[in-house]
């Protein structure tokens, strides 16, 4: 189920209800995220952007069906699903390795929801909707790597972690899925972090602590990086 907002609905009168309520959607870090500068003054060394609306589906191959799973994936997305820690992007989806014989489908606009994918992987994989289970934070800026070096024990040197590299790992004892997207126009590397929703506010504050000395630019976006 997509985590993009559903318009508030008025209950039909014949249901004789006094209630009128809406299903407004709230990002788990909506309160913690204050758009604007943070920490040291001057040119921001790190920019942190929450990407708010996306569909996220975990695809896990059934026993002995890893190979079988790749065909429908290729058919649907036009690219092979990653079989090692990588992220591959297509026009309307990003496939991110999330463990042996499993991957995430990250997309938006309801195109690749669980419902939409269930037929595709009917016999070869199990699907689990994670759209609401994670928060997506995009990190860039000249000091992005230095800030991440405080949180991540893996080597993010350009040679060791090039664009398209992915990892399921822990940041500050919190499980995350990390991948490097395409560099920004200015050449800055972009790191994307999917963190469990209930940990997100906590990790967000840790990120701010870690980045404060470099100066931070905070924002949020509806668009996938």
């Amino acid at each position: 189920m997509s985590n993009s907002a559903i318009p508030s609905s008025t209950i039909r009168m014949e249901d004789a209800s006094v209630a009128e309520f809406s299903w407004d959607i709230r990002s788990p870090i909506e309160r913690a995220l204050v758009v604007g500068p943070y920490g040291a003054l001057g040119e921001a060394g790190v920019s942190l952007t929450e990407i708010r609306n996306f569909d996220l589906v975990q695809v896990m191959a059934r026993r002995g069906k890893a190979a079988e799973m790749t065909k429908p994936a290729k058919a649907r997305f036009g690219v092979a699903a990653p079989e090692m820690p990588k992220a591959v992007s297509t026009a309307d989806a990003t496939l991110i390795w999330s463990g042996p014989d499993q991957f995430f489908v990250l997309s938006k606009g309801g195109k690749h929801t669980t419902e939409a994918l269930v037929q595709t992987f009917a016999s070869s994989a199990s699907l689990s909707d994670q759209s609401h289970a994670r928060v997506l934070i995009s990190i860039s800026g000249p000091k992005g790597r230095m800030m991440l070096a405080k949180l991540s024990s893996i080597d993010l040197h350009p040679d060791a972690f090039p664009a398209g590299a992915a990892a399921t790992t822990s940041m500050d004892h919190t499980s995350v899925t990390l991948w490097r997207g395409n560099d920004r126009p200015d050449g800055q590397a972009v790191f994307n972090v999917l963190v469990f929703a209930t940990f997100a506010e906590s990790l967000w504050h840790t990120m701010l602590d870690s980045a404060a000395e470099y100066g931070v630019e905070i924002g949020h976006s509806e668009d996938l990086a």
Partner: protein
Amino acid sequence: MAGAQTNRLDNGGLIDRSAPLNFRFDGKTFQGFQGDTLASALVANGVKLVGRSFKYHRPRGILTAGSEEPNALVELRTGARREANTKATTAELYEGLEAASQNRWPSLRHDVMSVNQLFAPIFVAGFYYKTFMWPAKFWEMIYEPAIRRAAGLGRAAIVADPDHYDKAWAHCDVVIAGSGPAGLAAALAAGRSGARVILCEEDFTLGGRLLSDGGTIDGLPAAEWLTRTLTELASTPDVRIMTRTTLFGVYDGGTYGAIERVNDYLPTPPEHQVRQRLWRIVAQRCVVAAGAIERPIVFAGNDTPGVMMASAMRTYVTRYAATPAKRIALFTNNEDGWRTVETALAAGLQVAAVIDARPDVSPAHRSLASRNGFTVLHGSVSGVDGGKDGVRKIAVSLTGGARAEVEADGLAVSGGWNPAVGLTSYHRGRPKWRDDISAFVPDGAPPGMAAAGAANGDFGLGACLSQGFATGAAAARDAGRNGNAGAAPIADDEAFSLTPLWHVAGKGKAFVDQQHDVTASDIELAQREGFESVEHLKRYTTLGMATDQGKTSNVAGLAIMAAVTGKSIPETGTTIYRPPYVPVAIGAFAGHHRDETFHATRLTPSHHWAAEQGAIFVDTGLWKRAQWYPRAGEKDWLESVTREVKAVRSGVGFCDVSTLGKIDVHGPDAGAFLDRVYINTFSSLAVGKARYGLMLREDGLVYDDGTTSRLAEDHYFLTTTTAKAGLVMQHLEFCRQVLFPELDVQLTSVSDQWAQFSIAGPKTRDLLKEIVDPAEDLSNEGFPFMGAREVALRGGIKARLFRISFSGEMAFEISVPARYGGAMARNLMQAGKPFGVTPYGTEALGVMRVEKGHVAGPELSGTTTAADLGLGKMMSTKKDFIGRVMAGREALVAPDRQVVVGIKPVDKARRLRSGAHIIPKGQTPGPDNDQGYVTSVCFSPTLDQWIGLGLVERGRERIGEIVHAHDPLRGEDYDVELCNPVFYDPDGGRQRG
């Protein structure tokens, strides 16, 4: 107003004379320069007395110029930032620095405790083991407090550390410890080879001994070569140079610990910056170029202020342009010591004499002596006349027995050099002895680590450069970097000649470990008493256990032990070297994991909504959960909780239960899989149904419980307790991947995907009708007890609805995608207005579960069986499952086990407390009749009294029995009745209705 820098040379030194810095030592104001350490600034100001020793409170001065310093320890900074035992020799000077001497009262010059020196004959090594035993009670009351007050050195701050710390990771091919000639050469070679290099230097200036001893490299003066080299390294890609950073430890898998003193050179760290940063450096190879430490010679009075290591004296004169003395003598047993004479002469100091323990001295040195009119004495220093104000006279016993006296106000001592073997020995490798230099050199270094230069026992400048370069190149190659390293820097080696001399016999105290006041005779005493093993020696005399970690004392100590036992030094051996190489602030190891950010915080999807309602939160593991929702006018939590319970029992209420672990179990074998992990059967569960399940550990004791629903043929939705969510996932993955790999099943945590609410109370259906799409049939027939299915909600979103009850009321649990959690809570409040809907917290939840006799954390203690919990009948006999066999062991099925029962005070007004023990009525409490205890309690609004659950011996057979609740901790004793644990609606009509 600052005192004049009486002992500062007019020119020279790596100090910035244009940047004077004022500082205070023991309240007196002095001035130094940018580039000074506290020690060099004190030297420049003619300060000799800087501290008092540990046991005898003897006056002490500055012995060294580095992190090996045993004496010159101060309290640096004040108040919350006070740092005890800070080495003046490594503390960078800054404007306004405040330092105080330690371990003296009332003042450094007049220290009352120096009377201890009178008792010195009694205060020998280990004296306290032989006395203070009578009368027994006096130890805690009198002796020990006195000892504790006397012990210790500086005073730590007594309020929270206001500074911040953090930790970071770094990765490289080659990490190098030390930026002396060997370290720099290694960095050049590795860098040119294309390796990713990190060079750590504990000093704030790069160059190591080059800064004090100079020399000529590649035909250039050392200073010029240094500048050229640093420029090259700065422009070499992936070479990272970290000053003020000490590599302190080596851990498994090529992980190195380093501490960066980011802002210690400032009064306080700038805003948003840390004081220190802990680095974990992951490297393929490590080059230890940490140099060597000059060692003292042990002689009477060797702790007199003004006695200083020869190399340290060169450092103060050359690097800091500060003169420790006007007229110096040198006591050496090796060639290197003579450099200090050359340095002193060059700086225009007088040289009184050189006492050289070697049989003869080179002609060059002889002519140096005659040219500069000082004598060369063959022999040893046997005593020092001096005290607080420094050295006055030096007694010399000449080879052949004659005596001589030398007048000098400073004595430089050189006993040779000990390679810094710490890092290479931290994996219990023992250094090996090299006779030619009479020193231990690295051996058995951890994988990937190699020492070079002085750290490897090769002291010559040429050797340091060539060996450092070769080691750096090899390290790069091993890491797969094969670029052209070019040519190694070249320099000559100084002549090396040394005659071992450790201890000069003589009258008066001769100190081996100056900080711990361990004397040569203490070591002889230890040997006499059988503490011959070096480890026993260390523990008995405390040799080498002070803040300098024995850097200047250990080898001398075991050399003396070797002498008295008649063993060789290598036979005597070394103690085990232990990290860290230098003491590291505890705060740095903690980083930002302190105070509120000690651990992460997990928030439920409706957290912020609950906060708006003024909920009180409780920590449950990492979670913050709403504990209760106080209302204006309620006098305490009990009143609020009671209201919440009554509201649920009479109307409807809801509670966020999203903290439960939730796991999607997919796959054709999902049912078979669950049959093996639960004691009861799930393969037979119909789609659209939920069932309570119980898991055991393989040892047969209860592990976890929860309801699991079948949403499709090949899809179950499993829930765990909040506490065990992560562990159960790990356990299930173990079962899936290791125990039952043949089963086709997939597991995914969906704990964070769903916001789950329990809606309970007789009016639950009325409330749900407002939320759920009218097309959904919620009638008892359409949605019976233990039903579970997906439903549509008004407004079009999908939810999972489970008709399960923890409260014992007509109840549902509903799951909506997590980002709707806040909306769900708001909508429930709005839709529930007509029915008086009430949000309730974990306390009310707990009350209702106790009233209903459900077991939870306190009963699932990891020591209870299914039968203990009254759930024995759930154990299937038709299948194998985790824990089945071990659950059958005799003691686990014994009839006298403590089992779950209900407990209520006979006096209805009486409060029941968890942790009270159960004793048979009329018996005196004792180990033999301690029959169990109260596990969970609550005030039951429904029964209008305190009730509880307990684990009681044979409890189920004793329903109705009056027993004694014994609670000596809280001074309570009262009668209670053992009763059916289900206090409320025992036949379960309400939850089915």
